[in-house]
């Protein structure tokens, strides 16, 4: 397919502007005027055709099943979009006086209340713009807490099953990661944790349920070990979808948590979302949260600035449009609905796991939470996870997360979410079973997939070894 630059209609203006009715030499001084602007000139229908064609080649949760493990690609209800488009929200400016944006401030205030309730925390900031950004904010809060106490703690414990963002966050915060092993059950190895937890440790970063989709059954003991040596417990809330309305991380003893509104709370995820990664903390950490927070006094909402705050982490108040969507979702479901969503997400995952078990190697054969991990260890004829993922595209599905978590060789991590019907789950399972048969009987069909997508099997090695990300027809 040609790029928009290659469709440049050199002999045609494509569009006729109204005649300029102001003297054009006065608006901008001559020396600041560009002589040419290298933007393609194309007629309106050609532009529409170009981008409509591109959009048809895209894949999203509005088109089909998207079981990307650890990403919670649930359906994003369209009512979220209606509410976010209300003029009272879209026509706001962040510099407006507080008296004229009380509605928006009320929404943010109430959203922090809901998130506090869901997580069992005492204070929430909505400012971070992504999960990893929330992690960083949380880690800086923890670091500031210890610095103020004069403690020189500099290590953070992270299980070997963790998301890659956890060690990245720790490093960006100027701290050092220490890896904690998983045991045979796929959860934190308590002996290894006890050995590594000492007076230099800021705390542990833990995802619960973890990236294998398993609930950390020893969580109370894990947090006790960390707290006993004066450390703090950070909950990576990536997998909140499995436990919201059922278990409150704050009640388990966690001191800090981040939420992914673009996962658990149905705001758009992927392709720049944009994301939103609020964090919640216990009372003793509240004063370190980014400024400003919103307080309510006599039915008036106002911004509050803490002098101990770690400072701003994002311009103004976070990705406000996403806060509106998450608020709408939570209000739409209510507390019973939130709980039901978590229960259905877990039920869907377990249903798929049990149906796939006779055909694929289930790495940890236990009741799972909202996702589970299978691997390619029993695939015949050298068919790999990568091949299976590519072949799934031919069936009209997005592939699951592959080769993660790192502790499982050839991992395929499947997270159906609660918004899929049993029919869809069955179709996906049937596709995987058929791929297993193909791997046995006609392995080349799998190894050379996909066959039906606009872009066929890409040469990942060539792409990585000979990186070329510039489009050079016009710059050469």
């Amino acid at each position, binding site marked *: 397919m040609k790029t928009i630059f290659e469709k440049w209609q050199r002999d045609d203006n494509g569009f006729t502007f109204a005649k300029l009715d102001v003297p054009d030499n006065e608006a901008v001084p001559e020396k600041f005027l560009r002589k040419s602007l290298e933007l393609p000139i194309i007629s309106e229908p050609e532009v529409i055709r170009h981008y409509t064609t591109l959009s048809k080649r895209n894949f999203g949760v509005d088109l089909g099943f998207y079981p990307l493990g650890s990403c919670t690609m649930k359906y994003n209800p369209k009512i979220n979009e209606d509410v976010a488009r209300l003029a009272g929200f879209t026509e706001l400016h962040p510099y407006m006086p507080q008296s004229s944006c009380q509605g928006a401030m009320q929404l943010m205030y109430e959203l922090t209340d809901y998130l506090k309730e869901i997580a069992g925390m005492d204070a929430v900031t909505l400012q971070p713009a992504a999960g990893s950004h929330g992690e960083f904010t949380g880690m800086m809060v923890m670091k500031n807490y210890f610095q103020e106490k004069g403690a020189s703690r500099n290590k953070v414990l992270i299980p070997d099953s963790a998301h890659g963002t956890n060690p990245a966050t720790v490093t960006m915060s100027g701290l050092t990661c220490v890896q904690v092993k998983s045991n045979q059950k796929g959860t934190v190895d308590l002996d290894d944790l006890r050995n590594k937890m000492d007076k230099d440790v800021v705390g542990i970063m833990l995802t619960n349920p973890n990236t294998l989709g398993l609930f950390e059954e020893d969580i109370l003991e894990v947090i006790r070990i960390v707290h006993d040596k004066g450390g703090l417990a950070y909950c990576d809330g990536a997998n909140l979808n499995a436990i919201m309305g059922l278990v409150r991380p704050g009640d388990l003893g966690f001191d800090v948590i981040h939420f992914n509104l673009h996962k658990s709370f149905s705001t758009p995820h992927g392709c720049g979302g944009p994301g939103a990664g609020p964090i919640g903390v216990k009372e003793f950490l509240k004063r370190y949260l980014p400024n400003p927070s919103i307080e309510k006094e006599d039915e008036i909402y106002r911004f509050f600035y803490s002098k101990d705050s770690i400072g701003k982490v994002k311009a103004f108040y976070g990705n406000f449009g996403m806060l509106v969507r998450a608020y709408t979702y939570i209000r739409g479901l209510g507390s019973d609905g939130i709980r039901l969503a978590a229960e259905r997400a877990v039920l869907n995952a377990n249903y798929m796991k049990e149906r796939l078990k006779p055909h694929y190697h289930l790495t940890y054969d236990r009741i799972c939470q909202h996702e589970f991990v299978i691997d390619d260890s029993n695939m015949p004829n050298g068919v790999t996870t990568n091949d299976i993922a590519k072949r799934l595209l031919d069936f009209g599905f997005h592939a699951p997360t592959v*080769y993660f978590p*790192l502790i499982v*060789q050839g991992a395929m991590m499947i997270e159906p979410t609660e918004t899929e019907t049993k029919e869809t789950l069955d179709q996906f399972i049937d596709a995987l079973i058929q791929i297993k048969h193909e791997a046995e009987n006609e392995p080349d069909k799998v190894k050379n997939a996909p066959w039906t997508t606009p872009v066929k099997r890409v040469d*990942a*090695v060539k792409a*990585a*070894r000979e990186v070329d990300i510039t489009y050079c027809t016009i710059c050469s």
Partner: protein
Amino acid sequence: MNIPENLKYTEEHEWVKIEDGTAVMGITDFAQKMLTDVVFVELPEVGKQVEKGKPFIVVESVKSVSDVFAVLSGEVMEVNETVADDPALVNQDPYGKGWLVKIKISSVGETDSLLTHDAYLKLCEGEENK
């Protein structure tokens, strides 16, 4: 699986060849197979002091990014610039043209803890059956 008998190994799948107080090291055939196609190798600077067991090289494949650990403590004497330009050498010839660095050994006693050919072979067989 190719495991030359004249080399020593580590549990992290590095090989090392010791001669006259220097150690040439790289990653094993098993390691390159696990990584799949290597696309980028980040080598340390010559003269860097390294400590046994600490990461000092990064190898990136289409599948993952992995640290390579120093097999012995000492000073980096030489790095294989050819590999930086052509990372595929790590896959094609891990024990030859795909070598990574040469270290001047500072503590001779450390060589005792390296794995022999037989011990490493057993380790790999164990991992394959996992």
